[in-house]
């Protein structure tokens, strides 16, 4: 019943066309099965059979395998948790930093505003003071000084 026995036997010089005919009869192939493909399929089959037999014959270390998997799983969970914790704390720290920066900037803006207001107030005070001085200085000449004032005026007229 073997599909590929024809190819296997072909190695020993027997019935090489059998496998091709059977496959073609099955209506499987649009193209005839060439020698390379047939041989590759035979080798593939033999390879899988050999591998499987070897593994079946090998004593299994199930406990160790399970333990290894458990360790791997535990390690991967721990790594995942660490990554998540790192990501979350990083995000929180970033957010905190952003808030802190915003707070400092707001404080700086308020201080600048206060400084400007104070400067404006000082300027205003100074202007008021100067205006007051001007008004004080430009008071009417006292009566005792009136003749001198007249002289000054005449001098200016003569010139």
């Amino acid at each position, binding site marked *: 019943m073997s599909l590929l026995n024809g190819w296997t036997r072909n190695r020993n010089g027997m019935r090489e066309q059998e496998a091709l005919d059977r496959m073609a009869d099955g209506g499987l192939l649009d*193209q005839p099965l060439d020698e390379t*493909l047939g041989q590759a399929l035979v080798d593939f089959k033999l390879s899988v059979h050999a591998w499987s037999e070897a593994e079946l014959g090998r004593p299994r270390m199930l406990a160790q395998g399970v333990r290894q998997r458990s360790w791997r799983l535990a390690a991967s969970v721990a790594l995942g948790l660490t990554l998540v914790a790192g990501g979350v704390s990083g995000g929180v720290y970033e957010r905190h930093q952003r808030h802190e920066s915003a707070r400092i900037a707001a404080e700086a803006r308020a201080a600048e505003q206060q400084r400007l207001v104070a400067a404006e107030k000082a300027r205003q005070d100074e202007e008021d003071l100067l205006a007051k001085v001007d008004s004080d200085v430009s008071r009417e000449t006292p009566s005792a000084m009136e003749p001198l004032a007249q002289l000054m005026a005449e001098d200016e007229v003569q010139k």
Partner: protein
Amino acid sequence: MASSTALEAMTMGTAAELAAQEFTCVVERHRPQIFRFLLASTRDVDLAETLTQECFLKAHRNWGSFRGESTAMTWLMRIAINLQKDHWRNRRMQFWRQTRTNSVDLDEASEWLPSGERSAEQKLLAKEQVKRVWQSVKGLSERQRTVFLLRFVEEQELSEIALATGLSEGTVKAHLSRALGRVRAELGGKR
């Protein structure tokens, strides 16, 4: 009355023993084939072993409902295919359960060739061809891979494959044709 009850109990006991013996025979006869199919499908020895055990456990639980409409091998293969499907589906959903696959790489899978009467050059060539077939099989869809392996590794008839996979024979042929086309292209393209 008492004797008939005892007789019934004895008959039932004998039937159960017979069924157990029969199932043991089935396991011994078909375990290598089921394991081989699962190993070729997954390229993971531990997983293939686990799924093989699950397959026979499931078969044991349902052995009473097996009516012999198909061969025991076909019935077991159907269970194995479904287990494999479930495994991949669960794995997709719960990808975190296992951080990496235990599948062996294609080089390692291609190492296995029986030591026949071949020259070193022939062995190298055969190994290279087997690696290319593995490469193609890896790229096949799940159904195509299943059908391909059942046909060319397990050498099952189309009707058996159809029964085991639950597909029609026409669909099996179509999958097989596409799978074979890919293998042919892989072998031809890199020749």
